[in-house]
């Protein structure tokens, strides 16, 4: 519940960011996933060794990796 409240406070309190202020946000290092292929590979290898799921995606089936 505290997390949700924090989320709404963050959302409401954000200042407007004008288009001419977004240069840093547009840099590759600020991308959600800098390298989608590497992210997919990490998720694949981690899934074979851990029980956690990636909260940012609804994955497909398994790989049968033992």
């Amino acid at each position: 519940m505290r997390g949700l409240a924090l989320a709404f406070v963050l959302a409401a309190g954000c200042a407007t960011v004008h288009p001419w202020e977004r240069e840093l946000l547009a840099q590759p290092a600020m991308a959600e996933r800098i390298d989608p292929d590497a992210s997919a590979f990490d998720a694949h290898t981690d899934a074979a060794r851990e029980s956690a799921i990636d909260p940012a995606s609804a994955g497909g089936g398994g790989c049968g990796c033992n």
Partner: protein
Amino acid sequence: MLLAVPAAADDRVSVGTSLAIDTDGLTVVQPAVSARVEVVEDVHVSGRYEADVISAATVDVRTSASVRPFEETRHGGALGLELELDRLTTLSGTGSFSYSPDYASGGLSLRLRVEDDARRHALTVDVGGAYDSVGRVGDASPTGDAFAAATALAWSIVLSPQAVVDFALAIDHRRGFLESPYRFVTVAGSGSQVRLPEEVPDERWRAALGGGLRWAIAEPFYIRAGYRFHVDDWGVAGHTVDVAGHLAPAPGWLLTASGRVLSQRGATFYSGGYATLPEIPEYRTRDRTLSPHWSMVGALDLRIPIETVAGFRVSANVRGRVVWHRYFDTPLLPERTTWIASFALTAER
């Protein structure tokens, strides 16, 4: 640049390979190729193919089958279609598959991404389902099958010209044959012991809640940090913290150092040794991923621009990653270290 979140390149092709070696005696070579192409205005098609060329044997296979090296190849891939409905809304669908001699899986997923007009908020919703057929190498027919359904919600908020915060929630449901047909569990007691097939519940609900911050400290330095909590109805619960620092010293160059720590509580029915005879435990497993465990990951990534060819920016990506797992209440091989090296060439415009 008018985007709150950097947009994916219009066209992108990547070819690469990874090598993973771990202390369980497992070696995996994974060649992969992927592409995303704009076929007509606002319509992109994507595809990916990868193969896991596996040699040696994991401890589970090795102790339940004859002790000898083995080789196996898993083929996997995906095809996707992405539609830009308008400048703020994207709808995409992906079909995926994975096949090896003892495992076949197919899945479908849909994604809807919406941004507000001020490009301050981005909301992404994923839904997906998959079917798995599980068997043993050499068996005439599969041992069992399983179904999975999942949904995920992600919300990104631009806080300032230098910072973005992300929230994500995922829920996953699986039912069917969720055991490994290779794993057998020894149950002892009363001066005797028996070896029985692994048995876990036929249904599993999992959830994960995460958040993160991406922060441009001052060009060329960037950092990101994230936290994830995962839990399921088998009793597994865990915390993951990850941090990364990025250095972009020149256009096209990017050096990333990252680390991750995970701490997990095991499933309620997990035990390193079952000594209940003459009673047979209803659920019994030797799956180390269900044990209480820690893991730490350290990685270095380097992107190097090569040249621009026919409008495509070509770069080389080199990665090194070390993953260390410490499994508790696991008498057999309680530690597992994996070294992973990757190289890829990417062309995008």
